[in-house]
Each structure stands twice: as structure tokens, then as C-alpha cells.
């Protein structure tokens, strides 16, 4: 049943209907044949029997009347005719008794009645024959009275037989009628049951195969619609949330972008400053180098000064020797001036002056020599210091070289950083675009969700309509 499709099921229902119709028709045919047989029995046995008994009764009544007339009117001429009527009655009864289709009981009863009627007829013929001619003696009256009661009995028996045969006929006919009614009722009942069964099958089919699935589909779709509505609401909510978040995100990103711009600017500035520092370092190195070279020059100058000083010391020794010699010469001159007496007195003053000058020259030469020695000492110390300074400058130059290298590295790093920051800025601006698009998408999603809600409402309306069409509210 479940495997058949709807068309097959409907055809099955119609088939049941047709089968029931054919069954009830066949039953009616069968029963109408039975009714025909019964009707034939009635027309061949019961009806003629009833008719014959009626004839017999009529003949008997004619006989009674004939005898009565003969007795009352004292007219014997009617006796034969009355006896003839009586014989007819007996013959009719005998004919009834010989009808084959009657029940044996009825036949036997009719036979007995015929016999008693025959007997009665013989007695009546005799007694009424006597009574119809002349006065009625007491004994004759008794006999007539007995006969009258017998006649009465016979008449009653005949009437009873007539009634019974009529009742038989009536019973048969009413049985026929009843069976006909039963038959039609039965056929009607079969038809009705078939109709009900077919109707039930159709109903069940429709309920199971059409209404049930439709109801299930409706329930499923309704549930899906509810789910969709819920999902749409959620979607709208989350869309709005996403939109808000995205807007917030966009704001954050803008802030980030601004910060990045600042960082980029700072980094670029750093790079620039690093470059500047590098350049300054280069300048410093050059200066230092120049200073180093100056120190070298200074060193050589100092050496030269040392040499000059030594030369000056030599010169001073010469001067000292000269002073010494001069002193000696002065002494000699003083001595010669003293010998020369007064002529030589002027000379002796000059010679003293020359000697003091020689002393002073020697002293100055000794002072200068000390100074020169000090100077040489200082110069050699200065040379040493200059060497130290040169070494320091060398170290400074190396350090500056290192620093310059580091500053160059810093500048390169800053450049790289600036590029990186610029890349980050590009990425952030792209992220910003994406975020804007996300915001737009989220808004679209929210709109789509609300549209979906509307659609779901429409679907629900259609579903309600479908439910009304199917005629089930409990779904």
C-alpha cells in the first residue's frame, strides 16, 4: 500500500467500488432467480390451490343454499342440483389434494375434508330429500339440526381451508415480497458497505498519501520557516553587530592609520637625522683626520722645534764660550789698562763694562740654555703628548668610523623601517577599504536578513493558505 503511488491508490479505491457494485449486482441476480423459482411454485401450486378451494367453498355454499331452498320451500327438484354442487365441491377439494407443489400436511387435510364432505353430501342428500317433502317430524328436526351443525362445521372447515390457502398464498407472496425487499436491502447494504469501504480507502489514501505528506511537508516547511525567521533575526542582529564592529574597527584603523602616518613621518625624520648624523660623523672623521694630520704636522714641528732648540742650545754654548772668552779678554784688557795707568783708566771702565756684559751674556746664555733645556723638555713632553693625542685621535677616528657605520646602519634601518611603515600604511589603508566593504557587506547582510524575514512571512502566509486548503488546523 505504501509503495503504490497516489494514482494507483485512487484506482484501487475505484476498483473496490466497482467490485462491490458487481458483487451486489450478482447477488441481486442470484436472489431474483430464487424469487422467480418461488414465484413459479406459487403460480403452479399455491395459487391454483387457493382458487380451487375458493371454488369448492363457493360450490359448497351453493349446495347449502340449494338444500336450504329445497327444504324450506319443500321443493325436491333442487336437490339434484344441490347434490351436483356438492360433488363439484368434493371434486375441487380432491383436485387440491392432488396438487403436487403443496405441503403434505395441507394435501392430507384437504383430502380428509373432501372425504368428510363426500360423507356429508350423502347424508344431506338422504335427510334433506326426506325433509323437502312434507312436514318435519321431531326426529327429522333433530337429524336436520345435527346435519346443520355438520354443515356449519364443514363450512367452517372450508372457510378455514380457504383462509389457510389464502394465508399460504399471502405468506408466500409476502415472503417473496419480504425476500425481495431483503434482497434489495441487502444489495443496497452491500453497495453501501462497498461505498463506505471505498470511501474509507479513498479517505485513508488521501489522508495518508496526500494530506499526511502535505501536512508533514507543511509542518517541515513551517519549522524551516520558523528556523529561517529565527536565523534571519539572528543574521540581522549579527549583521548589525558586525556592521557596528566594522565601523568601530574602521575608526580604530583610521586611528591606526593616522598613528602610522605619524610613525612614518617620525621614522623618515629619524632616517633623515641618521643620514645627517652620518654626514656629521663623516665631517667629524674628516676633521679628526685633519686634526690627526695636524697633529702629525705638529709632531714634526715639535721635532723641528726640538732640533732648533738643540741648535739654539749649541748657539747658546757658543755664546757662553764667547762670553767666557770675552770675560777673559776683558780681564786681559783690565790688566793691560791697569799697567797703562791713567791713560788706560777709561779703558779699564770699558773693560769692566765689557766684562759685566760678558757676565750678563754668560748669565743670559745660561738662563736661555735653561729655558731652552726646559723648552726642549717641554717640547719632548709635547711631542709625547702629541703622540698620545695622535693615538687618541686615531682611536677617535676609529670610533667615529664605527659610529658612522652604526649611524649608516641606523639610517639604512630607518629607511627600511620607513619603507616597512609605508607598507604597513598601505596595508592598513587596504584593511580600511576592506573594512569599509565589510561594513557595506554587513549592512547588505542586515538588509538581506530583513528581506528574508519578509519572505519567510510570505511563506508562512502561503503555508496558512495551504493548511486551509488541506483542511487541517492541527498541523
Amino acid at each position, binding site marked *: 500500500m505504501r509503495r503504490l503511488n497516489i494514482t494507483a491508490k485512487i484506482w484501487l479505491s475505484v476498483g473496490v467500488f466497482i467490485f462491490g457494485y458487481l458483487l451486489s449486482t450478482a447477488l441481486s441476480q442470484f436472489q431474483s432467480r430464487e424469487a422467480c423459482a418461488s414465484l413459479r411454485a406459487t403460480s403452479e401450486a399455491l395459487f391454483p390451490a387457493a382458487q380451487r378451494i375458493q371454488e369448492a367453498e363457493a360450490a359448497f355454499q351453493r349446495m347449502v343454499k340449494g*338444500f*336450504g331452498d329445497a*327444504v*324450506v*320451500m*319443500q321443493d325436491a327438484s333442487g336437490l339434484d342440483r344441490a347434490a351436483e354442487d356438492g360433488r363439484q365441491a368434493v371434486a375441487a377439494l380432491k383436485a387440491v389434494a392432488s396438487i403436487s407443489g403443496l405441503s403434505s400436511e395441507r394435501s392430507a387435510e384437504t383430502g380428509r375434508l373432501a372425504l368428510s364432505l363426500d360423507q356429508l353430501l350423502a347424508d344431506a342428500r338422504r335427510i334433506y330429500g326426506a*325433509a323437502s317433502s312434507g*312436514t*318435519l317430524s*321431531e326426529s327429522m*328436526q333433530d337429524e*336436520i*339440526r345435527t*346435519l*346443520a*351443525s355438520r354443515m*356449519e362445521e364443514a363450512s367452517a372447515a372450508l372457510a378455514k381451508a380457504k383462509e389457510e390457502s389464502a394465508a399460504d398464498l399471502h405468506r408466500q407472496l409476502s415472503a417473496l415480497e419480504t425476500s425481495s425487499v431483503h434482497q434489495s436491502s441487502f444489495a443496497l447494504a452491500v453497495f453501501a458497505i462497498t461505498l463506505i469501504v471505498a470511501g474509507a480507502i479513498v479517505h485513508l489514501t488521501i489522508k495518508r498519501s496526500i494530506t499526511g505528506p502535505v501536512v508533514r511537508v507543511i509542518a517541515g516547511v513551517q519549522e524551516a520557516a520558523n528556523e529561517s525567521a529565527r536565523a534571519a533575526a539572528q543574521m540581522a542582529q549579527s549583521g548589525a553587530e558586525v556592521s557596528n564592529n566594522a565601523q568601530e574597527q574602521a575608526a580604530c584603523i583610521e586611528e591606526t592609520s593616522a598613528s602610522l602616518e605619524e610613525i612614518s613621518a617620525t621614522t623618515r625624520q629619524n632616517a633623515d637625522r641618521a643620514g645627517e648624523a652620518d654626514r656629521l660623523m663623516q665631517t667629524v672623521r674628516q676633521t679628526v683626520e685633519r686634526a690627526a694630520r695636524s697633529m702629525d704636522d705638529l709632531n714634526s714641528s715639535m721635532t723641528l722645534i726640538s732640533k732648533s732648540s738643540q741648535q739654539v742650545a749649541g748657539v747658546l754654548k757658543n755664546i757662553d764660550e764667547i762670553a767666557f772668552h770675552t770675560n777673559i779678554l776683558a780681564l786681559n784688557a783690565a790688566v793691560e789698562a791697569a799697567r797703562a795707568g791713567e791713560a788706560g783708566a777709561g779703558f779699564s771702565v770699558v773693560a769692566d763694562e765689557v766684562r759685566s756684559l760678558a757676565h750678563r751674556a754668560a748669565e743670559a746664555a745660561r738662563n736661555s740654555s735653561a729655558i731652552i733645556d726646559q723648552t726642549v723638555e717641554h717640547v719632548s713632553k709635547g711631542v709625547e703628548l702629541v703622540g698620545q693625542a695622535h693615538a687618541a685621535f686615531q682611536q677617535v677616528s676609529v670610533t667615529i668610523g664605527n659610529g658612522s657605520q652604526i649611524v649608516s646602519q641606523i639610517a639604512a634601518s630607518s629607511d627600511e623601517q620607513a619603507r616597512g611603515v609605508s607598507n604597513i600604511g598601505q596595508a592598513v589603508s587596504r584593511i580600511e577599504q576592506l573594512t569599509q566593504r565589510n561594513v557595506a557587506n554587513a549592512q547588505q547582510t542586515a538588509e538581506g536578513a530583513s528581506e528574508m524575514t519578509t519572505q519567510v512571512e510570505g511563506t508562512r502566509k502561503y503555508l496558512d493558505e495551504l493548511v486551509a486548503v488541506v483542511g487541517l488546523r492541527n498541523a
Partner: protein
Amino acid sequence: MRNTQIFLCLVLLAVCAAVTAFAGDIKVIANPSVGASSVSADEIKGVFLATKTSLSDGSHVEPVLEKDGPAHEAFLKQFIGKTDTALETYYRSLVFTGKASMPKTLPADAEMVAYVAKTKGAIGYVSAGASTAGVKTLEVK
């Protein structure tokens, strides 16, 4: 039409007068065992046509007829309304159907009186002038 009605009325009056005139010609007698002292014409007709076997007071009666004669004729004419032949046919039909027996028939007033006097419940009639010794004369209402 009007004349015919008047004529019929006159005939009716004449008949009534005749009946009244005959009433005096017979008297109805009964055995003294009969309790009633008077009897109506309808009762008499019923008793003599065997449709009644008792009077209004409950006493059982049996009709007795005279064979012929003026009293019989007068009785038939006054109470029964049938001829003698018709009455016999009537009784024979009753006998034939077993409803009654032929009534006792007596030749004259004297036998009638004697029979009624000795038969319990007997009711009969005699000429107005006949002796009614031993019987009871019933007044006809």
C-alpha cells in the same frame, strides 16, 4: 305531489284505525309460571319469530301457535306481519340452519288454553271470547 302525501297520510290513519279495531279480537295468554303481566307488541313478535326466548322480566317463554282459524289470522296480521305460509317457511329455514325447532301447533282455542295451562313458559293466543281458565292473560302494551 301534495295530494299524494295527503292520500298517504289518510291511508296510514285508516290502517292504524283498522289495527286498533282488530286488537280487541284476540288476547295473548301465558302459563301462570310467566312472571310478566304485560307484554309489548315487539316482544310478542320477537318471541313468535324465535328471535327472543325470554320476556323483558327474564321469564323463559316458548311460543305456541294455532294451526289456523280467525284468531290465528288476526294474530299473524296484528303482531307478526307474515302470512301463515311465510311463517312456516321462516320456521323451516330456522330448522334447516339448526337455530330453532318448529313451534308447537294446536288446532283450536280450547287445545291452546289447555296446552298453555299445562306447559311451563308457554305463551299463545286465543280469540277474545275464548275461556282462559288456568292461563294468564297478558296485557298488550
